[in-house]
Every structure is written in structure tokens, then in C-alpha cells.
């Protein structure tokens, strides 16, 4: 049986990091990846489409990742979307703050592609 097409939104201001995440996610079958430069761009893209997972950095210009998580969880659309944070912030309090705001997973940089793939698959409930 064909797996339905899923869509991920990657919000990351660093083009290097974004390319690396997209590269990792491209190994998941039937997953389309849309990119956004910052929180505002991310929100705009979320409001204009249907997404199955959100992957975001924390430290970004204009609107940071935590604000984005908070707005998504308190918004009308995508309030239940699984959210993965990928950040340089490795302190326990940063992790707790992100999870308390509604993030489902917290991954610290530098990332390992298999770790990102397995977390995204787990949240999307795909094999």
C-alpha cells in the first residue's frame, strides 16, 4: 500500500544547517520538505498549507524558534503538529523551556542525520 505524501517544514536561518537537515530528511520516503528562513516566514508558510511536522531552530532573527512554537501551539491551524527543535542550546533549562512550550523533541547541534531521521519517523509514526 502506498504511503500518503507527508510534508515537513524546516525553519532555520542558516542555509548550511538548512541544507543539512533537508539532506537528512530527503532519505525519508514520501516526505516533502518546505524551507523557511525564520519564525515569521515559518508561520506564513504554515498558514498557507498543510504540514505534518515542524522542525525549527531556536536562535533566529525576526522571530525565534520558541516564539514560533508558542504561536503554533496557541494558533488555530497546526496546533497539534509534532515539533522538533534543533539547536545549539544544550543546557537542560533550554530543553525544559522548549518542551514546556509544546515541542515534542529537542536535538542539539552538531546533528547526526540518523538521529534526526529516527525522531522525525517516530513522530510521524512511519517505519
Amino acid at each position, binding site marked *: 500500500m502506498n504511503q500518503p505524501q507527508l510534508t515537513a517544514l524546516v525553519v532555520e536561518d542558516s542555509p*548550511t544547517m538548512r541544507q543539512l537537515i533537508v539532506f537528512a530528511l530527503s532519505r525519508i520516503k514520501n516526505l516533502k520538505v518546505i524551507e523557511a528562513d525564520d519564525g515569521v516566514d515559518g508561520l506564513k508558510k504554515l498558514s498557507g498549507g498543510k504540514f505534518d511536522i515542524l522542525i525549527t531552530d531556536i536562535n533566529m532573527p525576526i522571530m525565534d524558534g520558541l516564539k514560533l512554537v508558542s504561536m503554533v501551539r496557541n494558533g488555530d491551524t497546526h496546533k497539534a503538529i509534532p515539533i522538533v527543535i534543533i539547536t545549539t542550546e544544550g543546557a537542560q533549562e533550554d530543553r525544559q523551556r522548549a518542551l514546556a512550550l509544546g515541542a515534542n523533541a529537542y536535538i542539539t*547541534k552538531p546533528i547526526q542525520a540518523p538521529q534526526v531521521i529516527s525522531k522525525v519517523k517516530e513522530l510521524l509514526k512511519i517505519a
Partner: protein
Amino acid sequence: MSGQTEQDLAKILRQSAESSERLLKENAELRARLERAEAAAGKAPQDYVELEAKFRALEGENREFANRYVEIEEENNNLANLYVASYQLHSTLDFREVLQIITEIAINLIGAECFAIYLVDDKTRTLTAVASEGLDKDKLPKVTLGQGTIGQVAETGENHFGPEEQMNAPVNPAEPFICIPLKIKDRIIGVIALYSFLKQKTRLASVDYELFTLLAGHAATALFSSKLYSESERKLSTIQGFLELMTS
């Protein structure tokens, strides 16, 4: 004995002989079956041993494949990191953008927290910080070629790696934990000095050393060509302005 009795006795004897013969036949058959059963019983443990040996061998192969799979996954991941780093470094001819990309690679791919990029000034034989993270670039002193760790790396072109236990020691701008020369063939145009790493980065992986090598070559080329390009653009606009003045 009467004839009747003889006949009866002969009949009994015949029946008895037939019965004995049948019993002997059955006995022979049972013996044969027993022999076959014994032979089969004797052979079974041998088959079992062979099967177990095969099973163990397959299990070993399976483990080997699993380990190999993990290694290949890791290698794929490393190659992806190297590809992305290299691709990004050569994606622009803007000097500031190249510096930004080197910074991003150091933070996101290597996990560096405090570092600086120094460039050599051939006229004054000094190194000046042109970009930094976690440190104020303007407060970083100029370094004379050959002096201190940074100066020596810039002069010799040899990588400097501090002992791993000093990986997150307090930052001393003169003594980076790692110092990588930025080289174009034998020409050294600068260095990247790494002082400390993100909290979660507790050890250096093999891909980090590959990234350092990649940075040494590709970042140097990208910085050098972007610098040349911006200089040629500047000269071109000066010449164009001059020509416009001449023709107007």
C-alpha cells in the same frame, strides 16, 4: 499313534512352524525398523550440531552486517556534512558571506562555541581577526607571524591540536585549543583558531578532523577568490567611473 493323531500333530506342528516363521519375519522387520530408528537417532544430534553451527555463523554474519550498516550510515552522514560544507563555501563570491558560511560550519557542523578567523597581511607579516564568535573580534590582538600558537601555525602551515582534556578549558585568545591554517597549495592566507566547544560537544569525532582539513583548503580558496572578486569589482567600478568622466 493313530493316523488321525499324527495328522493332528502334523497340523499343530505346521501351524507352530508357520507361527514361528511369522514371528521370525516380524522380528526381522522389527529389528530392521529398530536399526533404522537407531541410525536415525544416532544421526539427529549430528544434524543438530551442523544446524547450530550454521545458525551461529549466520548470526555472526548478521552482526557483522549490522555493524557495517552502522559504519556506512556514519560514513554517509559524514559525507553529507562534507558535501554541504563544501557546497556552501563555494556558493558565493561575497567575502562577508564566505566568512558567515565558515562561521556557520564551525558552529553547526563542528559544534564550536568560541573561535576566530584570522587573515595574514603579507606587508606587515601579521594576522588580524576578520570574524569571530563568542569573542569580540575588535579586542583580539594582532599576531605576528611565527609568534605564539596562531603565529606558528600561520608560518609553518601545520595544524595544532591541543590535548583533549583541555577541550573546554577557559578561553585564552593567544592559545587556541585547535588552530587550522587556511592554505592554498603552499600559501597560507590565514588561520581558524578554535577556543571552546558547545556544552554537548564533549569529544572530537573523525569527521571533525575531515572538516578541519576541508576548511583548511576550501575555506581558504573561497575566502581568497571572494576577496579577489570584490577587489576586481571595485577596480571595475573605478575604471567605469573614470571612463564615464572621460566620455562625458
